[in-house]
């Protein structure tokens, strides 16, 4: 008992020391993000070298809880966050509630560093820019060379003009499965709108939201139901696995259990860690008669309007987004393409090295981000929309009828989106 009191007192003393240990003469910025420390470290290091009187502290919060953290802290006028990493689809909601500082005064500089219009759209809302764009994303078709060889299938071409149609891909997947692969094809982020939007857009079914502010749902139209049914059939026919969560799909590919996986470029470093896995990349398929579409959008860095260190915060935000040095460091340990045009060149150099082994990845990435990228709908109701749709996709994947499910989603969305004022 005495020992425990002793420990408690000692720790209390330690606590008081820690509380009082503020840095003198240095500005400290608090940066809230959902990234791992290892990803953020290189850019913080680079920044602190360039601006020795500013220190950046990274507060990492798991992705699923970032929203909760932002809502409870910035919403209540918290000054303890200076910079926040904003997921681009959430920017309209955050911006309309006043959580993000308007950046229109820096528009010229931003447009110069990031010429891609889609990337600019991702950080805008209602005519203004609310975040400095950092990264973007796209999707690739990965295939297991060994499984395809075993089935006698020709490797898909890496040339975007010779892109596979979905029908062609499913045929190959079936063949691979008949030749012994456990599964034919899977999506990396199953049941997620981010991943599946490209299917509906490719078919011409639209993003599922229309009207003023994109707050009117349109998810049970005939093309939507058709694609929904197509998605459900993948699992009904046993071509793709049920019950595997998005966190575990990579494992299927790594363990040689699935022949094709549609996933993002971040998977490359994971797949490369396995010498037994012989894989290559191709552009993602599209629906015949429709157009090729790839998902896009990623994280951007925004400033808390209540922050008391806005100038210092700007310096950091602009370092990691507008300054090619910082932008390149931001993707040093993070396998995503930066949107900064200069930094992209550096990124591309690095990615070129992969070509011999897995195909012209960087060429595909460049092509897709410039030609086929369609962002998620810019609306305040995005999270509500995504939550309802993800559930609907999950139900369809588990065997529910596509029409009934999408009708139900339509009703839910009508009610929930009407709550947004």
């Amino acid at each position: 008992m005495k020992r425990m009191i002793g420990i408690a007192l000692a720790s209390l003393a330690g606590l008081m020391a820690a509380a009082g240990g503020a840095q003198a003469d240095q500005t400290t910025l608090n940066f809230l993000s959902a990234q791992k420390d290892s990803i953020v470290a290189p850019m913080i290091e680079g920044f602190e070298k360039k601006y020795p009187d500013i220190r950046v502290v990274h507060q990492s919060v798991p992705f699923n809880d970032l929203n909760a953290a932002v809502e409870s802290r910035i919403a209540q006028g918290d000054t303890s966050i200076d910079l926040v990493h904003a997921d681009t689809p959430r920017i309209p909601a955050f911006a309309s509630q006043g959580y993000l500082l308007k950046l229109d005064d820096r528009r010229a500089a931003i447009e110069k560093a990031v010429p891609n219009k889609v990337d600019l759209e991702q950080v805008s809302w209602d005519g203004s820019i609310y975040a400095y764009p950092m990264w973007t994303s796209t999707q690739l078709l990965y295939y297991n060379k060994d499984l395809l060889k075993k089935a006698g299938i020709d490797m898909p071409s890496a040339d975007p003009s010779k892109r596979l149609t979905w029908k062609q891909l499913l045929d190959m997947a079936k063949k691979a499965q008949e030749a012994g692969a456990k599964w034919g094809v899977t999506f990396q982020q199953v049941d997620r709108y981010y991943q599946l939007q490209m299917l509906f857009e490719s078919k011409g079914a639209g993003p599922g939201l229309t009207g003023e502010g994109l707050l009117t749902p349109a998810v049970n139209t005939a093309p939507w139901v058709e694609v929904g049914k197509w998605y459900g059939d993948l699992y009904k026919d046993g071509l793709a696995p049920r019950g595997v969560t998005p966190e575990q799909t990579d494992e299927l590919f790594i363990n040689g259990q699935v022949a094709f996986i549609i996933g993002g470029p971040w998977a490359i470093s994971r797949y490369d860690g396995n010498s037994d896995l012989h894989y290559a990349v191709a552009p993602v398929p599209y629906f015949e008669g429709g157009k090729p579409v790839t998902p896009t959008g990623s994280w951007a860095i925004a400033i808390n309007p209540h922050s008391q260190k806005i100038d210092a915060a700007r310096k950091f935000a602009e370092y990691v987004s507008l300054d090619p040095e910082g932008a390149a460091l931001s993707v040093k340990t993070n396998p995503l393409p930066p949107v900064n045009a200069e930094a992209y060149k550096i990124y591309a150099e690095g990615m070129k090295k992969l070509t011999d082994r897995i195909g012209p990845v960087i060429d595909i990435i460049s092509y897709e981000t410039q030609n086929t990228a369609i962002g998620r709908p810019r609306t305040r109701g995005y999270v509500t929309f995504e939550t309802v749709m993800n559930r609907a996709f999950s139900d369809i994947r588990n065997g529910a009828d596509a029409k009934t499910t999408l009708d139900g989603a339509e009703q839910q969305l009508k009610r929930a989106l009407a709550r947004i004022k």
Partner: protein
Amino acid sequence: MNEHSSALRYAAIILAALVFFMPLWWVAISALRPADEIFRYISPLSLQSFWPEHWTLTNIVGLWEGSFRRAILNSLFVSAVTVIVGLAICSMAAFALAVIDFPLRNAVFMTMVVSFLIPFDAIAVPLFGIMRDLRLQNTYTGLILPGIGNGLAVFLLRQFFLGIPKELREAGFVDGMGWFGIYWRIYLPLSGPAMISAALILFVFQWQAYLWPLLIAPAPQFKVAAVAIAQFSGQYDVNFGLIFAAALFISVIPMVILTILQRFYSASVASSGGKE
């Protein structure tokens, strides 16, 4: 009840323990094997499903080098203080509710009960506002406070105190003890097992706490283990090897504590000698 174990009973106990333990065994072997092999052998069942061919300490080492070490220490500290302070105030409250006959006693008791009916996550945001106004963000106090007034622990101890015979209390008065003396010298010593159960409640509450520490203390030096483990699920890659290694640590520590408590427990029961 017959206390001497028959062989059948023994076997049943071991079987029950094994059934509960199996998933934890999977966590343990997953922590100690290369991360990419974790999902390879889940089906069909083979020897490798239960016993890895390749053992490695990479995950454990990778964990220890990071900030996880600090997170475990934070969790231990916060839980320990919660248990100590919590036991004190909850047992005092339970004593008053069970033993002292005062007006509005039942009303106060129901208030205690209502308090643990309220889902913590539903009040986390308003509570956060209150704590922030008290400037308790990123402090140990902020982490500990919500855990010490535990209505469930008060309830448990009150039930137990109700069962201690009035005669003992009356004898205490006769001997000249005041209320506090009766509490300290009669009720508490008899309450070994109940106090340990209450300690368990307080401990589990803090050890499992996730949303609250996330909101009130996100700064790296205050992270607790439950939050730190979520770090290993990145948006794009989930390192199950690290997750399970962290889970191993997060469970071994309570396991050690619980094993020690088991000893205290049996010793307490023996010394308090049951009632009457």
